[in-house]
């Protein structure tokens, strides 16, 4: 069969090195962990950094455009006869590689400080490197199966890292939940692959997209649906989002790298990668856009109801990814991808900043027990402030540009409702992020206050983990300043989280647009009634409203005065709908988990032993019963035997009399 490749044919061995270096690190850290000890961290970071350097060097190859085909291609091996593997580096992949390796390297550095002294230091870095490798596999693969392999491996890495402290039952449960929900996504992609293979007899992106026009519309919709199930599971879209908040059981750097910057955006990558399929199926676009908008809104609403600093960030992540999915869903691919780009920086920064706080407060995660940290942790304050301003879309900060691209894109592609949702969500975002900021840093420190006075009654309902990160093991000093190794990466991140957005400034002839020239299909956009500038204005107004409400509730004099009472009343009066996260967990548990377990118990306890085996047993018993019956016929009475004999003889005689009579 023809094997069409995207990206210019020919080899680009550098790509293999770029791809395999982290794997090497993982193997080394795994194999020689005990011997490497602290060196493992440096080794791992160095290798990820190296592949970042290689990524930078590959800029030219990745963005080159020869004969209409973008990027570089390196074929690897023939997977099974007729289905080949290869690596593909085009602008889209290149962008992800930058973020994965760049942000990844920074977070590796940070982890050296954060995980310092943990018993399984080397194992942690082995997992982190393995994750980077898996993520690179995902974004560099030139075919669906390779992508699926990467897809599964990142899920595995996330499973390992969520359950990194495997002696914590809560962590173990969270890891299992994350993995199983991600497998739901995997099988969705598998289903899409079956349809594609059945139609084009190839797993290559090129063949699949080249035939985009030739699929029957229902088939194409099913393909997109399957792919989107995968995307939704990985990117925590409603209703498959419930694993993401629990995933915060993992160490904070893990949350920053996997559950904020990279892995959870794989769904965005997938849809952007399959743009040729989506752009020709309006139903799929509608579906994805709607789910994305719904997720964005839902995440924001739930974000307003959390007290655990990491969970707030988790829900904000979910909401922001909702934006991206909405963007790529409706067809504003550049916007969605742009928001992934900026979000990677400021969300990583926010997580790492929260990590600074948690680390400094000896694993305290409940913002109600913080407060007044601006003076105690000024550096963390600055970091968080910048992050919050960025995520809110303050003019000049990165998200301002990327978010507006999405919101305006929805209108351009004719989805006014999603436009409204986007604007509303922007306001909510401003509210809950500033709430986080104010409650954490303003007022006075509440660490000494009795939790019950703060309304911390039911930790599980409040969404608190049963216990915080046990690392590092030294919980002696209270506010000890974080080591430079932790501060440096966060500081570096400040720069892009402010300025990354400027790349997107200038619409059609922005560097961003040039970078992606020819990457995405160009849809025919309608000229909306509202101009882009106006949109930005409306969004910003909305943001200001949200900010004002937050300020009034948490930053005003009165609020800061009796913060404890207000926080208490707020947490006690929290609506059940919110504190139960819209009952998604309960519903999934009741519908899927319990029912399956019920069926299993029935089959195992009733059907097998009593119905099936019972039948067999009865047959055996009745056979033995017949045996005893024959025993009882064997009376031992000579004359009885004679009688039996004569009876048989009589039967014979009758037969032969009749037969002879004929």
């Amino acid at each position, binding site marked *: 069969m023809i094997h069409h490749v995207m990206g210019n044919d020919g080899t680009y061995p550098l790509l293999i090195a770029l791809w395999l270096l982290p794997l090497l690190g993982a193997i080394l850290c795994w194999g020689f962990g005990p011997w490497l000890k602290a060196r493992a961290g440096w080794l791992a970071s160095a290798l990820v950094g190296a592949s970042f350097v290689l990524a930078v060097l590959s800029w030219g190859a990745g963005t080159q455009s020869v004969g209409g085909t973008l990027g570089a291609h390196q074929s690897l*091996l*023939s*997977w*099974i*006869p007729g289905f080949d593997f290869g690596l593909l580096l085009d602008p889209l992949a290149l962008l992800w590689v930058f973020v994965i390796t760049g942000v990844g390297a920074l977070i590796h550095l940070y982890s050296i400080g954060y995980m310092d002294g943990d018993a399984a230091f080397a194992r942690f870095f082995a997992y982190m490197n393995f994750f980077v490798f898996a993520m690179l596999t995902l974004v560099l693969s030139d075919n669906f*199966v390779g992508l*699926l*392999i*990467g*897809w*599964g*491996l990142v899920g*595995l890495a996330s499973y390992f890292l969520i*359950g990194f402290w*495997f*002696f914590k*039952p809560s962590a*173990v449960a969270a*890891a*299992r939940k994350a*993995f*199983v929900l991600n*497998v*739901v996504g*995997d*099988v969705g992609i*598998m*289903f899409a*692959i*079956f*349809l594609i*293979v*059945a139609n084009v007899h190839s797993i290559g992106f090129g063949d699949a997209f080249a035939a985009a026009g030739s699929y029957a519309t229902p088939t194409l919709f099913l393909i997109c649906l399957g792919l989107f199930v995968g995307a939704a599971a990985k990117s925590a879209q409603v209703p498959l989002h419930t694993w993401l908040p629990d995933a915060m059981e993992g160490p904070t750097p893990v949350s920053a790298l996997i559950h904020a910057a990279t892995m959870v955006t794989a769904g965005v990558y997938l849809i952007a990668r399959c743009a040729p399929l989506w752009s020709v199926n309006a139903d799929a676009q509608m579906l994805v856009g709607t789910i994305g908008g719904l997720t964005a809104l839902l995440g924001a609403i739930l974000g307003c109801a959390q007290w655990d600093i990491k969970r707030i960030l988790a829900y904000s992540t979910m909401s922001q990814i909702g934006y991206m999915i909405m963007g790529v869903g409706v067809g504003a691919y550049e916007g969605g991808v742009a928001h992934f780009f900026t979000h990677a920086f400021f969300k990583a920064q926010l997580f790492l900043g929260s990590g600074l706080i948690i680390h400094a407060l000896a694993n305290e995660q409940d913002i109600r027990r913080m407060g007044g940290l601006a003076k105690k942790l000024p550096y963390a304050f600055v970091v968080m402030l910048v992050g919050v301003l960025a995520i809110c879309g303050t003019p000049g900060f990165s998200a301002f540009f990327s978010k507006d691209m999405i919101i305006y894109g929805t209108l351009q592609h004719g989805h006014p409702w999603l436009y409204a949702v986007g604007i509303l969500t922007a306001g909510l975002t401003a509210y809950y992020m500033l709430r986080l900021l104010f409650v954490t840093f303003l007022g006075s420190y509440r660490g000494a206050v009795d939790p019950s006075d703060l309304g911390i009654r039911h930790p599980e309902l409040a969404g608190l983990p049963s216990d915080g990160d046990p690392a590092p093991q030294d919980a002696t000093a209270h506010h000890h300043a974080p080591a430079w190794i932790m501060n440096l990466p966060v500081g570096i991140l400040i720069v892009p989280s402010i300025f990354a957005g400027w790349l997107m400034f200038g619409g059609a002839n922005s560097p961003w647009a040039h970078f992606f020239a020819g990457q995405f299909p160009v849809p025919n956009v309608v000229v909306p009634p509202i101009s882009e500038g106006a949109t930005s204005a409306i969004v910003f107004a909305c943001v200001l409203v949200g900010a004002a409400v937050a300020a009034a509730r948490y930053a005003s004099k009165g609020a800061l005065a009796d913060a404890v009472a207000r926080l208490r009343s707020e947490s006690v009066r929290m609506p059940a709908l919110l504190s139960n996260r819209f009952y998604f967990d309960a519903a999934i548990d009741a519908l899927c988990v319990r029912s*399956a*377990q019920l*069926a*299993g*118990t029935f*089959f*195992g306890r009733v059907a*097998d*032993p009593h119905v*099936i*085996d019972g039948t*067999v047993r009865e047959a*055996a018993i009745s056979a033995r019963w017949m045996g005893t019956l024959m025993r009882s016929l064997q009376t031992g009475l000579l004359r009885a035997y004679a009688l039996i004999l004569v009876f048989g003889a009589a039967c014979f005689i009758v037969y032969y009399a009749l037969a002879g009579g004929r």
Partner: protein
Amino acid sequence: MRLRGDVNVLAPIAILLPLVAGALLFVLPDDPRLGKIYGTLVAFATLVVVLLARHADWSVRWLARPFTAAFHVGPTPIGWWLALLLGLCTLCAVAATNLPRQRSFVAQLLLLEGTMIGLFFARDLLLFAFFWDAMLIPVFFVLLGWGSHPATAWRYFIYNFAGGLLLLFATAAFGVIYGSTDVIGQSGAPLIGAWAPWIFAGFALAFLVKTPVWPLHTWMPATYADAPSPLVAVVSAVQSKAGLYGFLVIGLAYLPTYVARFAPELVVLGAISLLYGATVALVQPDTKRVVAYSSLSHLGLIAIAIATRNPLALQGALVYIVAHGLFSTALFLILGYVEEREGTRSLIRLGGLGHANPRLTGAFTIAALAALGLPGLAGFVGEIVILSGVYQAGWTWAVIVALIAIVLASAYMLRLLQDAMNGPVVDDLPVRRDLTWIEGLAVAPLLIALLAIGIQPHAIMAAIAGAVR
């Protein structure tokens, strides 16, 4: 061409070597270490012989009437792979054995290997039936001698012997009608006539009992739970494939029309097995039973693949047969280690072993991941190829059922793994030392093979593509 002559002789040697060596072991002094070393060497030698015997073909006349039959041995392309798998699994199982009356146990394992190599090397249907029944006997005696309840031995024996009788009857009728049973692996004309459906029914039932497929499976969980792990490893890895092998070399080759006619029934049975096994595995408290029911589920998938007769699905089925053999062997051996260390199989009691046994946990994790079809490991290759074949054959609903089962698989495998290895340390468990190097070596080849096939299935797929056609 005397080299070929040599090669041909390897086929009977591959069968006789373990049989004779196993019988010999009974008369050797009863020393556990001797038995193990001897057994390992023999198993290794057998593996080598099987490896070399790929193109062997050796035949001696047996019967002239009522139908021609011959001691015709020599691997079919598929049979060779299965024999290879068997050789590897037996080697690992023997190496991992650590039981009372070790010598006799190892001897039984070798006898089992011999009879099963015979089954996969048999080119004559009568010989096939011969080994089919013969391979029950060692298992039966191990269950009697080492199992916890004799009742299990009976159940195993009765179920499988009943299947064997049907096979016997079908074989006899086949021979009479077809004139010869020297048919396996030859490209003969399909069987026709008024008898054909009954003959097919006989074969099919025998194969389904052996596989097993719902509702003929109830002998299996008890057997897998009670028998010593090394034996269970071999039985679940290879013996349970005998039925599927029979479907391939007899059902598809000589009764294709009936396989086609009864495809819906077979697919339904396979689908039920898939979900049934998966859901039961979800709640079983006994580690070995979890794996047993997962096997029911996995083999249901293979049954579906064979029933659809789609070439892609068949290739996938063969890969999956090998993959399942590898990871179920690994799982059972590892569970055997756990049981022998902690003295329990109950997931309710086990927990937190990961602290003291990192190597054991690592091995267990890889095996479990392969079993739940993690992309990049062998199980995944089989699943995705089978299912895309099944989808192309038009059984969309079966594909969806299978996908659900894959999700369930991840749930029960993680439950098995985490409940045993993760969580806080359980105080009243006698947690013993981590894997010794010999124990590690016993499972390492399996895990390596899983990884290799997962990354580069091209070789085995290419080899199998020829076998399917």
